[in-house]
């Protein structure tokens, strides 16, 4: 029988039942690898300018005066954070995350600012190129920098109270993870050429990327918000957050699919209407990235619906804290870091071989 005069205790709250935090501090290798990935993102193209009839040019932080200084400053901050991490793991992680978040936000802000400014003032000149005669968009470096700095930030904030109560270690919700994949694909393909007008063999041709379409700037910002909401729902693990993320995903899916269908229909109609006499220099080519975007948009919508329907009965992938390879036992966190390092080394080798 319950004593009504007993001290008010919330009892075993729902969250405290769910909490199954692994004891001990987070490991050191994964945060450092994530910081390294942000640096690699900073060396990839941040801004791509596609002049009409010419090959596109790309720019990153190293092309801006003072940019290398910023990179060196952030690198020094990361080294200091790594040293702090030896004694105070979470403090060091937060310091490191703040340092690389600066790079990630710099990438995001530069892309957003350029997109907004060029949409208001089309005649502005960037790097000596008149933007009224070119398309300007974000490069892959922005996606890489922002994603890895966000992952590191989420690793930090899940150590804090009361967020730690909602976020069990070594459990990955299936729907959230599955939804992130098509969203990440769209964040990349929206900056690729969807349509090529004119003849690429001739001097005059224009590449039309998804981010050059009217209203696409706002769409990309909402896309990032949607991505963040799925990440948030993976951390907070509450049906309300999942329903919110699912609803936004469905709305995003409709808008992105609408854009791709309109561009596809327009391209097809134009190609069909053009007389055969001008086809040699005025062809319309639909690129593979348009189809990839459309398919990803469908996947985002379907997973959004599945997320809302299954919000209260969540499926999770449970990982062990260690993975065995014969007699060798590797902590799962380090395993993720090694996989990332493998891709980082691949990228460095590719860059050295192609000398870009």
């Amino acid at each position, binding site marked *: 029988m319950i004593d009504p005069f007993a001290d008010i205790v919330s009892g075993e709250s729902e969250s405290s039942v769910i909490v199954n935090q692994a004891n001990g501090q987070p490991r050191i290798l994964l945060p450092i690898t994530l910081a390294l990935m942000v640096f690699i993102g900073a060396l990839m193209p941040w801004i791509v300018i596609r002049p009409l009839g010419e090959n596109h040019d790309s720019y990153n932080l190293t092309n801006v*005066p003072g940019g290398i200084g910023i990179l060196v400053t952030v690198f020094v901050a990361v080294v200091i954070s790594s040293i702090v991490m030896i004694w105070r793991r979470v403090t060091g992680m937060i310091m490191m995350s703040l340092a690389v978040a600066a790079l990630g936000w710099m990438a995001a*802000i530069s892309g957003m600012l350029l997109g907004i400014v060029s949409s208001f003032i089309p005649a502005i000149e960037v790097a000596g190129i008149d933007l009224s005669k070119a398309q300007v968009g974000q490069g892959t470096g922005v996606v890489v920098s922002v994603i890895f700095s966000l992952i590191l930030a*989420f690793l930090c904030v899940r150590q804090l109270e*009361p967020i730690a109560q909602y976020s069990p270690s070594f459990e990955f919700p299936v729907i959230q993870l599955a939804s992130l994949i098509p969203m990440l694909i769209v964040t990349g393909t929206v900056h690729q050429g969807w349509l090529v007008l004119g003849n690429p063999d001739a001097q005059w041709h224009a590449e039309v990327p998804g981010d050059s379409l009217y209203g696409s700037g706002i769409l990309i910002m909402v896309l990032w918000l949607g991505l963040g909401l799925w990440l948030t729902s993976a951390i907070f693990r509450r049906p309300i957050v999942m329903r*919110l993320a699912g609803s936004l995903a469905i709305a995003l899916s409709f808008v992105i699919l609408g854009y791709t269908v309109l561009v596809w229909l327009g391209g097809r109609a134009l190609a069909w209407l053009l007389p055969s006499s001008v086809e040699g220099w005025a062809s319309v080519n639909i690129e593979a990235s348009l189809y990839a975007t459309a398919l990803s948009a469908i996947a985002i919508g379907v997973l959004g619906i599945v997320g809302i329907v299954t919000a209260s009965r969540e499926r999770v992938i449970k990982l062990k804290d260690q993975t065995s390879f014969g007699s060798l036992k590797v902590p799962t966190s380090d395993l993720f870091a090694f996989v990332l390092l493998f891709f980082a080394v691949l990228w460095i080798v590719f860059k050295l071989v192609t000398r870009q």
Partner: protein
Amino acid sequence: MAGILSYIAMALMVGLWIVGWLGLACLVGAFFDLELSTTALLGALLGPLGFVAVVILGIIEKTRSTGSVQVVDTQSSNLLDPFS
């Protein structure tokens, strides 16, 4: 000179962005009675996403604590002397 000015401009821009979102997150966190350090770090590290995360966290925490508050009210009303 251009490099130094550009360096300062970029550092200021990102600094303002981080501090701005930190402040906004703290404001909203205070409205929901969330811990200051948590809301500050959410805003500083995650920017606009942190702001949304603070709102969501606040709603979840508020919803969770509302149930306990109702129990407290019922019990405390029994203990209080209305004529004191």
